[in-house]
């Protein structure tokens, strides 16, 4: 075997350039941009992969073929060089802030460089060969497409059938969702059937889908009967490859379907969690490194003036113990300003009984029993049980209430508690709970004594986050300052921005406007890093696992194409005897595989979309104690769907390469000899 040293030299040079590009880009981006470390890593390695790919493309022209051996030698040398360069450079490893410690890790990265460069170069080379690297550049594929179409039997009938299956099946699923929604509305509404209110467009689509399905089934049934009536000899036989093609399309659709639905549900979880966290919490906190923050009233105007800030509110946070009758529970006590808290969180909207304003004005609280607010989000047996244990119990057994003088009652400070805590303590609006703090107590001969103060429940809040509803209680800022003996000081300021995702950058601007130290900000992503990074990892793991389904489906494409190549050997020979180039034959089969992949992907995306709509309308119940949320959430993200489609098409393309290359290398006489 003759080695082409020119190819090795060019390959090695381009692979080293790729490595250089990665290093230069990561250094430059790390120094002169605000991108996160992850983003810099993705961007620089993406650029490196692209250069590997392009190198392979160019090499297919230089070497007039795949040249796997020459590329492999170059990749191997690249790996060896990468090993020594990495040892010399000692770049930060991807396990955070650790240097390449062991030779073992260096070997792993060097091997990754070698294997990655080889695979990507081969991939690039395939594209080069496809456009005629071995002969002259030829981007046209018109007759190739015509022939590919006959192999796939893509005539009007098939296209019609595909459209029917591709639209009717998701349509039926959509219709099922609409039906579920309608029945749900009818069940809940007082007016029965008349309380159904469905978007007319959705209704129209559902009716169309059902009609089309009935029509299609009818035609199919008639067709089967007509076929059965024919004598055996006249029935058209389908070649095995057509059936295999259909199975391949189905395989890809199922893979894409699963991937989109699962990713949409995961995104739904993430968005829901983000929504709930940001409903109760602000986008960022402004705090000081010291515990004293008495000058906050002077800071507020400066903070408000920073561009992008939409709301500012002070807060005090401390841990306390809450007791009511015999029940005791730990809690996070938050002092808030009822007047401005609505500008940084959705707290006022979370009230399900009582009023948030009573925090600042406890004297206006009624002494009679307060009715729960009308709330549509809260329905079902779990909520009924809650009302049974709190509100109804208070109604039926007023004698359980501690008897206090109305005057004393009027002068008590107010407190708002979460729904789960209210349930746990069996405390309804108007009840008196005791708040106990170990801080600032009297010193006695036996040590400090915790202080206790009675508060009257002013409102009950429901955020949907179990953790918040069972842990957070709220009182007014002045009461909190008095209770914790803080003077005029507060813990910090809660901030809300117009753009949630710019939280970090705006936080930096605020600190700069205040003159830096001792001020600091913490944004929501930082405050909940564990939760969101766990979600991100989970999503990534799911995406990778489910991509394997698509991968397996692409093996289907591979075997179908191999069968097709075997079936069409004669045809390939004839085409070659008529002067068809190798690249043309390759194009035929690549186009076929891509068509299978594209049809499967399109059907899968439609199915995924319909399933998401179904889940959304049907409202799959979850146990809120376990999942924080009551319904399975979905978020349909267009970008996510696009990425899934791109992955599926890229994998289909890879699946075509082996059979297409084999077909292109067939000699013209291979198919002519066997008669």
């Amino acid at each position: 075997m003759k080695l082409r040293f020119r190819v090795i030299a060019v390959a090695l040079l381009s692979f080293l350039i790729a490595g250089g590009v990665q290093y230069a880009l990561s250094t430059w981006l790390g120094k002169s941009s605000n991108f996160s470390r992850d983003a810099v890593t993705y961007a620089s390695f993406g650029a490196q992969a692209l250069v590997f790919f392009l190198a392979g493309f160019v090499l297919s022209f230089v070497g007039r073929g795949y040249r796997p051996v020459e590329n492999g030698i170059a990749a191997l040398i690249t790996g060896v060089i990468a090993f020594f360069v990495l040892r010399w450079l000692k770049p930060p490893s991807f396990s955070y802030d650790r240097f390449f410690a062991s030779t073992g890790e260096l070997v792993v990265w060097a091997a990754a460089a070698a294997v990655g460069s080889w695979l990507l170069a081969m991939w690039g080379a395939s594209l080069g060969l496809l456009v005629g690297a071995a002969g002259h550049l030829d981007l046209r594929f018109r007759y190739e497409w015509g022939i590919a179409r006959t192999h796939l039997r893509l005539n009007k009938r098939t296209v019609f059938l595909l459209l029917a299956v591709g639209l009717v099946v998701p349509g039926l699923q959509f219709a099922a969702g609409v039906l579920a929604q309608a029945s749900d509305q009818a069940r809940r509404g007082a007016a029965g059937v008349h309380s159904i209110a469905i978007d007319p467009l959705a209704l129209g689509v559902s009716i169309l889908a059902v009609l089309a399905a009935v029509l299609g089934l009818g035609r199919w049934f008639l067709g089967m009967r007509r076929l059965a009536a024919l004598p055996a000899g006249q029935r058209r036989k389908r070649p095995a490859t057509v059936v295999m093609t259909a199975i391949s399309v189905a395989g890809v659709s199922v893979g894409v379907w699963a991937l989109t639905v699962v990713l949409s549900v995961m995104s739904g979880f993430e968005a829901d969690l983000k929504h709930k966290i940001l409903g109760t919490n602000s986008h960022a906190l402004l705090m000081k490194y010291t515990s004293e923050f008495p000058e906050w009233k002077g800071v507020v105007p400066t903070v408000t003036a920073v561009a992008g800030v939409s709301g500012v509110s002070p807060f005090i946070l401390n841990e306390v113990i809450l007791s009511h009758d015999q029940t005791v529970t730990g809690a996070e006590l938050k002092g808030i300003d009822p007047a401005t808290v609505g500008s940084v969180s959705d707290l006022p909207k979370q009230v399900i009984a009582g009023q948030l304003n009573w925090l600042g004005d406890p004297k206006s609280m009624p002494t009679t029993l307060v009715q729960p607010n009308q709330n549509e989000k809260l329905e079902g047996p779990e909520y009924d049980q809650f009302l049974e244990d709190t509100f109804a119990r208070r109604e039926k057994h007023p004698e359980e209430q501690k008897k206090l003088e109305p005057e004393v009652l009027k002068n008590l400070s107010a407190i708002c508690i979460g729904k789960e805590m209210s349930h746990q303590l069996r405390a309804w609006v108007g009840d008196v709970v005791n708040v106990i703090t170990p801080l600032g107590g009297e010193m006695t001969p036996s040590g400090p004594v915790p202080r206790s103060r009675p508060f009257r429940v002013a409102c009950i809040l429901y955020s949907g986050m179990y953790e918040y509803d069972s842990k957070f209680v709220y009182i007014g800022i002045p009461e909190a300052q008095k209770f914790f003996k803080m003077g005029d000081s507060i813990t910090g300021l809660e901030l809300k921005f117009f753009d949630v995702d710019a939280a970090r950058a705006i936080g930096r601007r605020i600190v700069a406007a205040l003159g830096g130290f001792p001020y600091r900000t913490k944004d929501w992503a930082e405050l909940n890093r564990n939760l969101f990074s766990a979600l991100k990892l989970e999503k990534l793991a799911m995406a990778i696992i489910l991509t394997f389904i698509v991968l397996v489906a692409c093996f289907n494409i591979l075997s179908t194409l191999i069968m097709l190549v075997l079936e069409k050997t004669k045809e390939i020979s004839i085409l070659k005897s008529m002067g068809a180039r190798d690249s043309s034959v390759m194009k035929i089969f690549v186009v076929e595989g891509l068509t299978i992949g594209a049809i499967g992907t399109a059907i899968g995306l439609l199915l995924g979309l319909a399933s998401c709509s179904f889940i959304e309308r049907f409202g799959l119940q979850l146990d809120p104690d376990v999942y924080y949320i009551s319904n399975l959430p979905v978020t349909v993200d267009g970008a996510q769907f696009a990425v899934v489609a791109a992955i599926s098409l890229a994998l289909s393309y890879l699946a075509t390469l082996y059979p297409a290359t084999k077909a292109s290398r067939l000699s013209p006489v291979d198919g002519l000899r066997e008669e």
Partner: protein
Amino acid sequence: MTEPLIEAREVHKSYWLGEKEIHVLRGASFSLQAGEMASLVGPSGVGKSTFLHVIGTLDPPTRGDVLFDGRVASAMGEEELANFRNRGVGFVFQFHYLLPEFTALQNASMPGLINRMSRDEAEQAAEEMLKVVGLAHRLDHKPGELSGGEQQRVALARALVLKPRLLLADEPTGNLDEATGEGIHQLLVELNQQLGIAAIVVTHNPRLAERMPRRLRLADGLVIDA
């Protein structure tokens, strides 16, 4: 004497059948002038098809050279070879090998499409050639709807659509009844006279072979003028 259109010099071709090497051609030499027409006869399995494939650059010789217009085929690159097969030579086989999903017109326009002609151009050329072979009324029929003779005529039109200078026919009438075969043969002779296309026609029919201006015989791996 002018330079021959096609020339074979000491062409050897052998196959491996398991461990055994089978020598099909053992130094066959011959030449054919432009516009010349020859028949090639020989017993079954003697290597007539192999000879045609080697002459038509479909199969490279084990040893020896095939020259077309003085150029050595083995020195041509993939691109040049493809161009030669596309425009320099037309093949007709015992079986028509038409693409079953395409009409007669589409089948005959395939070489034009491979040559990246526009569809109109390719179909126009194909229509003209189908008229020449007498199938003007069958343009939109698929191969399954044509008779054996008609199918072979379409194959012939396909081979000749880009006006090659050489036609290689491998038992074009072997699968047809006598009268139809006679018609195809007549057509080949007419085309040779009308268009000046050189042709080698492999046949088992001695009567048809007799009528050719030149008669070749393949025996013991050599080509001899009979």
